[in-house]
C-alpha cells in the first residue's frame, strides 16, 4: 500500500489502473479531463497496459464503452455534466444491453445558464437509465468505489453498468491523502473480468443486436433490468464485506454518522456530507440529538436500510443538491416514497435545495436547517421546500439585475 496526496480525479485514475481496465474511450470535459489525461499519460509512458481512444463526443464514447464491454473486456470511462447528458440516449441503451463497465461522473451543473461548478442535476438526470449509482464524499471513497463498482456490475446476478459520482471541484480538484492499495490486493479483491455468457466465441456466434420488441417481451426485459438492479442490494453488501476484509475500510450502502440516539437527521448525497458531519458535531456539542444519513448507493436505493435508520426519528432534513423544476428536490421525493405507509416513520420530512452551481452550504445553514426541522416537528407541519440562499446573495444578484436593466435602458435610448 502507498499513501499519496491525490485529487478525486487522481484517485479515479488510480482506481481504473488498479482495476486493470483494458479499454478507455475518452472525451475531455471540465472538471473530469484530468482523469483521462492522467490515464493517457500512463499509457503513453508504458505504465498502464491499456488502450485509451479519444472519440469525437460522449455519445460515441459511451456507445464504444458499452459495445466494448459487450465483447467481454473491462472498460472504464469518465465524464461530467453536459457530456453525461449528451450521452443520455446511449446510457439507457448500454444499460439495456446489460454490458457492465464503470463510468465516473464528476458532477457539474447543467446549462442554461452555463456553469462549470458542481451540483447533482447531471447525475440525477441519469437516475432512470439503468446504470447503478454510487455517490462519494471524499477522494479515498472515489478510489474504493470504482473497485467495488466493477465487482458489483460484473457480478452475474447484476450485469449492469455502474456510475461512480464525485462532486466537481470539491473532490475532483481537492487533494487529500489517499491509500492506494497494492496491485496484488486489488487483484485479489477484483479478479480479472469473467464475462461468461457475454464472451465472443467462435463456436457459438450470437447476434448482440437487440430485436424490436412488442409490449409484453419489452416489459419483460425492462423489468428484468429492474430486478437485476434490485439484486445489486444484496450483492453490494457482499462486495462491501469483502472490501472491508481486504482493505479494512467500511463502505456501507448507507452511511450513518452519529445516528444512534438522534431525533433529527440530515439526509444528503455526496461531498457536502463532510460539512454536515462537522455541523452534526457542533450541534451535538450544543445539546442537539442530530445525526447524518448518507446513501452511497443511490441506484438501487437501499430502502429497507433507510427505513431502519429512520424508524422512530422525529424529523428529517433532506438536502438536495439538485432541482427538478416544478417538483423540487429529487432525493426528498424519493425518501418520502420510501417512508410512506410504513409504521414508525418520521412524519416530518423538510426539503432543502442547496449547493446549486457550486454554491457553498455553510455550517450556519446546517444549524438553520436543524432549527427549521425541529420547529416543523413541534408545529406538526413541514414548511414548503426552501432554497438555501442568503440575503447578501440576493442583494448581489439584484444589483447585477439593476445594472443590466440600466444598460438595457441605455441601449434602448440609442437611436
Amino acid at each position, binding site marked *: 500500500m502507498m499513501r499519496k496526496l491525490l485529487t478525486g480525479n487522481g484517485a479515479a485514475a488510480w482506481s481504473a489502473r488498479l482495476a486493470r481496465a483494458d479499454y478507455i474511450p475518452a472525451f475531455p470535459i471540465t472538471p473530469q479531463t484530468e482523469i483521462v*489525461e492522467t490515464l*493517457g*499519460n500512463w499509457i503513453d509512458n508504458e505504465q498502464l497496459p491499456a488502450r485509451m481512444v*479519444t472519440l469525437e463526443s460522449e455519445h460515441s464514447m459511451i456507445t464504444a464503452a458499452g459495445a466494448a464491454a459487450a465483447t467481454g473486456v473491462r472498460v472504464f470511462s469518465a465524464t461530467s455534466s453536459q457530456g453525461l447528458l*449528451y450521452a443520455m440516449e446511449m446510457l439507457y441503451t448500454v444499460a439495456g444491453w446489460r454490458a457492465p463497465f464503470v463510468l465516473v461522473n464528476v458532477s457539474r451543473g447543467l446549462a442554461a445558464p452555463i456553469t462549470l461548478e458542481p451540483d447533482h442535476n447531471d447525475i440525477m438526470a441519469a437516475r432512470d437509465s439503468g446504470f447503478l449509482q454510487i455517490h462519494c464524499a471524499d477522494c479515498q471513497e472515489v478510489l474504493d468505489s470504482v473497485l467495488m463498482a466493477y465487482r458489483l456490475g460484473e457480478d452475474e446476478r447484476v450485469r449492469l453498468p455502474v456510475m461512480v459520482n464525485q462532486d466537481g471541484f470539491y473532490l475532483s480538484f481537492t487533494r487529500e491523502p489517499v491509500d492506494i492499495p497494492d496491485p496484488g490486493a486489488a487483484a485479489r479483491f477484483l479478479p480479472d473480468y469473467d464475462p461468461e455468457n457475454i464472451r465472443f466465441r467462435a463456436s457459438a456466434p450470437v447476434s448482440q443486436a437487440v430485436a424490436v420488441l412488442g409490449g409484453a417481451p419489452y416489459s419483460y426485459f425492462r423489468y428484468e433490468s429492474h430486478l437485476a438492479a434490485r439484486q445489486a442490494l444484496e450483492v453490494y453488501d457482499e462486495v462491501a464485506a469483502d472490501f472491508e476484509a481486504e482493505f479494512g475500510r467500511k463502505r456501507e450502502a448507507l452511511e450513518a454518522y452519529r445516528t444512534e440516539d438522534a431525533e433529527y437527521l440530515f439526509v444528503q448525497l455526496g461531498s457536502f456530507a463532510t460539512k454536515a458531519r462537522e455541523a452534526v458535531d457542533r450541534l451535538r456539542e450544543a445539546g442537539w440529538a442530530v445525526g447524518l444519513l448518507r446513501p452511497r448507493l443511490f441506484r438501487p436505493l437501499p430502502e429497507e436500510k433507510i427505513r431502519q435508520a429512520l424508524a422512530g426519528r422525529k424529523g428529517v432534513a433532506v438536502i438536495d443538491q439538485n432541482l427538478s423544476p416544478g417538483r423540487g428536490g429529487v432525493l426528498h421525493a424519493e425518501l418520502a416514497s420510501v417512508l410512506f405507509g410504513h409504521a414508525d416513520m418520521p412524519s416530518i420530512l423538510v426539503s432543502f435545495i442547496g449547493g446549486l452551481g457550486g454554491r457553498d452550504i455553510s455550517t450556519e445553514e446546517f444549524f438553520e436547517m436543524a432549527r427549521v426541522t425541529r420547529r416543523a416537528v413541534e408545529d406538526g407541519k413541514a414548511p414548503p421546500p426552501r432554497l438555501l440562499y442568503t440575503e447578501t446573495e440576493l442583494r448581489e444578484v439584484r444589483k447585477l439585475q439593476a445594472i443590466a436593466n440600466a444598460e438595457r435602458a441605455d441601449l434602448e435610448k440609442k437611436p
Partner: protein
Amino acid sequence: MFGLKADWSLDVQDRYFTIEDYEGAKPRWCTGCGDHGVLTAVHKVCREAQLPPEKIVAVSGIGCSSRLPHYMGTYGFHGLHGRALPFASGVKARRPDLDVWVATGDGDCFSIGGCHWVHALRYNIDMTVLVFDNAVYGLTKKQSSPTSPVGLKTNTHPTGAFLPPLNPLTVTLGVSNVSFVAQVVDWNPLLVYETIKKAHAHRGTSFVRIIQRCPVFVEEVHKDLQNDPSQILLLKHENGIPTNEAVERIYPNQREHDPSDWNAAMEIARNELQVPCGLLYHNPDAPVYDDWSSVGMGMSDEEKIAGINKALDSFSI
C-alpha cells in the same frame, strides 16, 4: 460628363454605425491569441456593411473561440458544445431578416458537432460560419482535436497525436450543395478582413476556415507557417478574395484559381504540401434552405384559419 449626375439623390442616413456599436465586452482571450484579429475584422465588416446591430445575431458553441458573441454589441447566443450550427439554423429559419454569424472551433465544428457541419453545408442557410481552427481543444487546456497534426504532443496524447488530421477543406467541398469555401490565416489582417467580407456578402452558408494561433498551448503548430510564407498558396482571381501588392509580396506562391471550378478547388484542397489561402469555391446559385423555411411568413390569422378550415373540409362527407 463632369460634376454630379442630374438624377442624383442623397439619402441622408439617419443612423451611422461605428466600430463601437459592434463591440461588446472586453475580450478575455490570451495575449497573442489569433481570435483577437478575427473579431476585429468581424467588427469592421459589420461597420462597412452598416448592419444595424439589432439585426445581427452572433451564435457559437463552446470553446475559447465560442466566446465571440460576448464580444459583440449585438444579439448573441452562447450555445452548447457542438451545437452552434443548429442554433444558428433555428434563429434564421423564421427570421430571414437577421444577419447570422457563427463562431465555432475545430472541436466544436469538426468533432462533437461534425454531423451538424455536414448537414448545415447542405442546407446552405444564409449565414457566415467562421471556424477558428487552432488544431487543439483550447478551452479544456490542450487535448488533441481532429485537426491536430501527427506528432503534436497534447494532454490526451503525450507522446504525440498519431492519426492523420482531418482535412476540413476536402470534407467541406465534398458535401453536396456546398456554396462557399474559403481559408485564411489569422495573422494577415487584410486577408482576414477581405475573406470575411466576401463570406458575409455571399447568400448561403459561407464556410471560412481560419487557421488560428494558440500560442499558449500549441505555438509550434503554426510557427513554421508563420515564419515561412512560401508554404502558403495564395489563390487569386477576379471573383476571389481581393489582395494587394503588399499581400502578394509576402506570399510568393500564387495561383490563379477560378472559384467556380470545383474540381480545381478539390485538387488544391487535397494538396497538403501547401496551405491555400483565398476563396476555393463559390457557387452563388446553390439552393438556400431559408427559401423553404421562410415560406408562409407573415400570414394573417384569417389566412391560417382558412387553411385549417380547408383541411377540415376534406373530412366532410
